[in-house]
Structure formats: C-alpha cells, structure tokens
C-alpha cells in the first residue's frame, strides 16, 4: 500500500505554522486539510510535495515497504494547485508531450483525460478560460504514473459537469493517496480523514 509519512514537521515564516506536525496519508483514505485563510494548508501541500523544505522534520513516500527516491516521487505525484501553472504559450498537445517526456503510457492517459474533459488538443493554455485551465491541470495530474494526488482547492472554477468527472477520477484511483486542501465543504465529501490547522 502507498502512503506518505510526515514526521515532526516544523515550519514558520513570520509566524509559526506547524510545531512538530506528524501524520500518515494512506491510500484508500482521502484526507482533507482544513483551516482558516493563512493557516498553512497550501504550504503543507508544498512541504508534502517536497517543493518546500520544512525547517525541521521529514517527509517520506512509501510504496509498500519501499521508500521512494526523489525522482520516483516526482514521477508518482500528481498536483492540482493554483501555484503549479503550465506554460501559457503551450498548446494542449505540447503540454501533454512535455509532461510525459517520452513516456507513452503517460501521454495516452493524459490524452484520454483531455477527451473526458472535452479539451481540444490544439488550444493554447494561456488563451483558455479559468475553468478550462483547471480541467487541464486535472488532466495532467491524473496520469498513468500517478500514485499520490495532492489537490489544492481542486473544485475552483469547475462547473458541475467537471466536478462530477473529478470525483469519478478520484473514486477510480482508489490505490492512490489523495490529499485535499480547501475551505470548501463540497470538496471534502469523499474524505475519510482530516487535519485541521488553526
């Protein structure tokens, strides 16, 4: 079983965000990160995705009993976040090729997601509406290699059709570790665990 283990995380900017936070995010038990604005939900996702370093503590990824390397983690993590933005100048086709970097399975799964989310391959990312940009981020994150899903307010700007598709994708990925950071109760409906930051 896949899981992420965070141990004794300390992180502070002008104020202290976490003081010895420990948790295990497990596959099959989607986890919600809740908290008021500025409580550090997005930062916790960034720390968990290893894009931010904690001041102290560790973040480890496991597939069964094997600890994953940084390279394996990058390949296995799918992120939907306002802070992870694809290039405005690239078309959907080029974005899929860029993200898959020659991995045919990954490319095919992204192209399948494009079809499901009704995304035209020739469209340029920078010329899309905010809702369609969110669909693209989801399509890129939910690929064949994804085993860990870190979602920061994933329903943002999505219409009801897309929200349903996203929920279906999460339901299908039962083997994936799913973490959702948000203040929107609608996004927590399928979560089985929660962390509340104050």
């Amino acid at each position, binding site marked *: 079983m896949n899981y992420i283990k965070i141990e004794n995380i300390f992180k502070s900017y002008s104020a202290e965000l976490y003081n010895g936070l420990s948790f295990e995010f497990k596959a099959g038990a989607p986890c919600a990160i809740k908290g008021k604005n500025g409580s550090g939900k997005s930062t916790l996702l960034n720390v968990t995705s290893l894009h931010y370093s904690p001041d102290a503590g560790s973040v480890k990824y496991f597939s069964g009993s094997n600890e994953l390397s940084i390279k394996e983690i990058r390949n296995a993590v799918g992120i939907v976040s306002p802070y992870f933005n694809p*290039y405005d100048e690239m078309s959907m086709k080029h974005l899929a090729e860029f993200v898959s970097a020659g991995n045919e399975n990954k490319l095919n799964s992204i192209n399948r997601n494009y079809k499901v989310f009704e995304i035209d391959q020739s469209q340029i990312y920078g010329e899309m509406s905010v809702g369609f940009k969110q669909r693209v981020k989801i399509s890129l994150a939910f690929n064949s290699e994804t085993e860990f899903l870190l979602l920061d307010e994933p329903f943002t700007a999505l219409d009801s059709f897309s929200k349903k598709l996203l929920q279906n994708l999460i339901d299908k990925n039962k083997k994936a570790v799913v973490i959702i950071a948000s203040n929107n109760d609608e996004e927590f409906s399928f979560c089985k665990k929660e962390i509340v930051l104050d």
Partner: protein
Amino acid sequence: MIKRILFLLKKELFVEYRENKTMFCAAALALSCSFVFSFMASLTDFSGNYNFIFWTAVFFTVFPGLDKIFRYEIERKNMKFLLQHYDVNEIAISKFIFNFLLIFVSEIIVLASCLYFNNLRLSSGGMFVILVLSSFAIASSTLFTALLSAKSGGNFIFAISMMPVIIPLMIILFKINIFEVNSINFKNAILVFLYGFFYLLVSLKFSGYIIKED
C-alpha cells in the same frame, strides 16, 4: 536524460517562438551595435581595432536576453510546474544550451555585420572555433549569474553579479584577435574554454539549491 533535456529544449524554443522576443531583440541589437560601434570607431582612435568592436557588440547584444532564462519561469509562476516534471540539472543544462544557441547566433550576426560595415573579409575558419568556445564560456558564466539573480529576485542582481564573472572573460576575449589569420591566440582560446567549463560545473553543482523555492 538526453531525451528529457531535448524535451526541455523543445519547450524553450517553443516558448521563444510564441513569444518571439529574445531572438528578435538579439538580432536587432546585433545589427545596431555592430553599426554604431563600427561608425564610432571610424571617428576615433579605435579605427581598425575590429576585435574590440566585435566583442563589445557581442556583449551588448547578448546580455539583455540572458538573465531571462530563469526569471521567465519565476515571473510567470511556472517554476514549480517545471520542477515537478524535470530534475534541476536537466533544467540547468537545457537553459545553458538555449543560451549557447542564442549567443552563437548573435555572434554570427554581429560577425557578419562587422565584416559588412567595416569592409572586411572572412579571415580564417579558425574564428568559428573561437565563436563556439566564446559562446560556451559566455553561456556558462552567465548561467551562474542568472541562477544567482533568480534566487535573489532582481534584474539588477544579474547586472551586478555579472561584472566580476564576465570582466575576466572579456579581458581574455579582447586578446584573441579573430580578424587576423595568423594571430588568433589559441592559448587564450583554451583559457576561455576552461573558464566556461569551470562556471558550468559550479552552476550544475549548485543549481539544485539555487532553483529550489522556499
């Protein structure tokens, strides 16, 4: 790794093609610098010092475009997306190759216009070796300063940190007379290569720390 660097390089060229700014600016600057420096030199004691005209025009041509390489991703908030899919060394190498191509193309344009504006003839094939080596050295040393300016978050940091890195290189390059067949100084050319190689190694060694955001 090579395949992944090619995907990154394709992205750089694609974004450049869509934006159409850096190469266009470099070409325009190459022509204007070559003309202005040749004209000014003809009015002063620098008349006939084509080596000086050439390298000065090259420096003024390429620098405006060089610090863009990391700042582009930071300003557009693409860095996390990029780091999610590619390793820092792959990113640094692709940026280095892109800058190398930018400098080399700029040098060719400056050389062609210098030859034209000063009524000179191509003296030796050896000058192309110098162009390749100097492009390599300028690309790798400015990669280092671009990394520093990306971390510090300011264009002016690039300009300031560039001085101690680039001035020694300029001094060596000014001593390589590429317009005279028999006096090309290949000893200095090797020095240029070693200088570039040193900064490439330093850049790759520290790129992980420097690119990472906190």
